[in-house]
């Protein structure tokens, strides 16, 4: 087929440095492929080196010494079929002796390097009750044993789906228990798409940030607001975005939001002041030190060396500070226009002050969405927004997710996940200013007047 040739396989080959997702059964793990790095996954350890050059989606088995071996795909009729089966379990007695192999026997089999599938076959052959089990019970037995003894690992390309499921399964605490269906709602309700300017505030390890960036495909800009010393991005890194995606990502510290809002953010002065005071402090420190030191020539040389290093470090620091300031300035410039196309919040902080502060940066007629693990803080947000006005279409929602087992004659729901997926408050911003008129840009009202107008607006809104 011609299409096959057109589709380049090069980009779908695993390479050193790639971020990948390992899959075994329903369990995922995100790792970066590195030279001779030991990876521990599902109580097994191995090296990724043999996976390099293989195609994504390839299944591997772990062989002695922790290396991966490409496992040829066998589909359908995967052996292990048995012909005999019982009708029901009326004659099956649980005497604990149905399995003739002992634990030691199984260990020996493993040490002999028997393949998982062969061990499972041995277990079946040595089970006295297997033939009496119903067809369904046999299938279940095989499935269970396969899960235990067959350790096939598939290497996949990261995506929001995989990473969101992985985080939810492995470390829900790190992502504020944000379930993947809730994340899906956020991305859709937020109308996240290429070319927009989105503000993200999250403490979900960078998963929400990454999922927003994936939906934007490297077009537009994302401004990540962060608390404390710096943004958390481990989850975003796991997506393995190409470098041009990173150029669309900006960061801005939450502690400077008030300054930007007041139009008083003066980056240049503050930072140079800071570094200057640090420098002088460092100088004083070294002077104090030098006083104590005797004037022995060797000592002198060492001191010079130290001074040189310090200067070099100071220089490097300066460059870094300069870079940081530039980044801050570019993010501030994006915010200052107050015309963001969307706002996404998902954090462990109380959402109310975050939302009330950040929504001021969003243009009218744009969606915003706030996640919280708990409902009550969002009720407060809802009421505050109602009071303040400037938003419509407010909705407080949560979703239920139910998985199904679909098998011939055995279809039923698997698991009801309720409540644990968190809550969302979503809405649309509108112009809080005066009711229409011929000159459209009339948003620069004095604060007191605007508040009054907004109050009026919200009371009207509720009457509508």
């Amino acid at each position: 087929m011609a299409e096959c040739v057109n589709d380049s396989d090069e980009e779908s080959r695993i390479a050193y440095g790639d971020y990948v997702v390992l899959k075994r059964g329903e369990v995922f793990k995100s790792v970066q492929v590195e030279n001779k790095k030991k990876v521990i996954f599902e109580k097994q350890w191995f090296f990724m080196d043999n996976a390099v050059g293989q195609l994504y989606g390839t299944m591997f088995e772990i062989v002695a010494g922790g290396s991966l071996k490409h496992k040829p795909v066998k589909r359908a009729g995967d052996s292990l079929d048995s012909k005999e089966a019982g009708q029901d379990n009326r004659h099956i007695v649980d005497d604990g002796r149905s399995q003739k192999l002992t634990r030691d026997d199984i260990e020996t089999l493993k040490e002999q390097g028997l393949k998982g599938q062969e061990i499972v076959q041995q277990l079946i052959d040595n089970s006295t009750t297997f033939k009496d089990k119903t067809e369904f019970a046999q299938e279940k037995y095989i499935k269970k044993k396969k899960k235990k003894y067959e350790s096939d690992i598939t290497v996949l390309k990261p995506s929001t789906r995989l990473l969101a499921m992985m985080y939810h399964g492995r470390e829900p605490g790190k992502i504020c228990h944000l379930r993947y269906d809730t994340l899906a709602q956020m991305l859709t309700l937020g109308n996240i798409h290429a070319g927009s300017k989105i503000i993200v505030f999250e403490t979900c390890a960078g998963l929400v940030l990454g999922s927003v960036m994936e939906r934007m495909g490297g077009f537009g800009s994302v401004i990540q607001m962060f608390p404390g010393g710096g943004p958390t991005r481990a989850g975003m890194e796991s997506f393995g975005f190409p470098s041009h995606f990173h150029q669309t990502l900006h960061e801005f510290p939450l502690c400077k939001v008030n300054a930007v809002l007041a139009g008083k953010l003066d980056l240049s002065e503050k930072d140079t002041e800071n570094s200057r005071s640090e420098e002088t402090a460092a100088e004083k420190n070294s002077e104090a030190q030098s006083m104590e030191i005797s004037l022995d020539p060797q000592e002198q040389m060492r001191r010079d060396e130290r001074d040189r290093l310090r200067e070099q470090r100071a220089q490097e620091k300066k460059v870094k500070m300069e870079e940081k300031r530039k980044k801050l300035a570019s993010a501030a410039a994006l915010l200052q226009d107050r015309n963001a196309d969307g706002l996404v919040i998902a954090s462990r902080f109380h959402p109310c002050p975050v939302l009330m502060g950040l929504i001021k940066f969003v243009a009218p007629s744009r969606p915003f969405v706030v996640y919280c693990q708990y409902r009550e803080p969002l009720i407060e947000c809802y009421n505050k927004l109602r009071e303040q006005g400037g938003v419509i279409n407010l909705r407080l929602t949560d979703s239920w997710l139910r998985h199904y087992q679909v098998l011939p004659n055995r279809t039923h729901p698997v698991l009801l996940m309720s409540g644990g997926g968190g809550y969302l408050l979503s809405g649309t911003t509108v112009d809080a200013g005066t009711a229409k008129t011929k000159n459209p840009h009339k948003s620069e009202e004095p604060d007191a007047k605007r508040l009054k107008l907004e109050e009026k607006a919200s009371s009207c809104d509720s009457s509508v």
Partner: protein
Amino acid sequence: MSFVEYSELIQEGDVVIIFMGHDSMMPIKVQSGAQTQTRYGVIRHSSDLIGQRFGSKVTCSKGGWVYVLHPTPELWTINLPHRTQILYTTDIANITLMLELKPGSVVCESGTGSGSLSHSILRTIAPTGHLHTVEFHSQRAEKAMQEFKEHKVSHLVTVRNQDVCKDGFGITGVADAVFLDIPSPWEAISHAKKALKYKGGRLCSFSPCIEQVQRTCEALLDHGFEEICTLEVLLRVHDVRTVTLPLPDFGPEEYYADSTQTTSDISQEDVNTSVICRTATPPREMAGHTGYLTFSSKPRDQRCE
């Protein structure tokens, strides 16, 4: 305006959403000289809409006012003219995530129906992706095409008027994802497989009945699809409100051991006889079932390797 790109000001030819209240919105097409009647009076497009900022408040002739909103696929979903039963945002959100749609994705869809999902897909895959949508009902196919043009997304979509179960999607080996919302999806699985890239892709089928799901899953297995997973998502919308809970009267407190005359006086007159409580209540009735979503992955084609 476009469904895939925000703009600041309303222009002639735009589709805008008139917001009159929570459950009261309507889409209108902006044309100079045109007028639209609402229950708050008339909106004159030339003076009230064109050149205005999206999100601004417009006063109508009777003194009432409305907001004009930029269209989004989500707003369109609740405002579009129904030609068929449609998919709603909750399901759409999960379909989009689980199909791993993003800018650049090539997607197949059938049937087009009323285009609710189509708009969402187009928003997500723009500016570099493409949607191949198949609708066997010629009038619906035509109407969808017209809408895509009006919404300035027609460059991202190809509408084919054919039977997907017989004729497939009209493409081979180019799709990253396939979505099926048809009565007998199991008949389209082989076509879906053909449409997907040889290196693999994702598939989703939406069916209201479990028997349809059953047959679809069997067909998926037969065609070598992997990671078959069926799920259902329900949305609960909570009504935020302030409720008042009256406190019961246990009679005067003077009979109670420690209470003094003065406190009982206060409790009778000044202390509230009720507690005000801010809460959110689940809806009395909610959509309990829309459809089952069956997802699956097509593995890499062995022949092409």
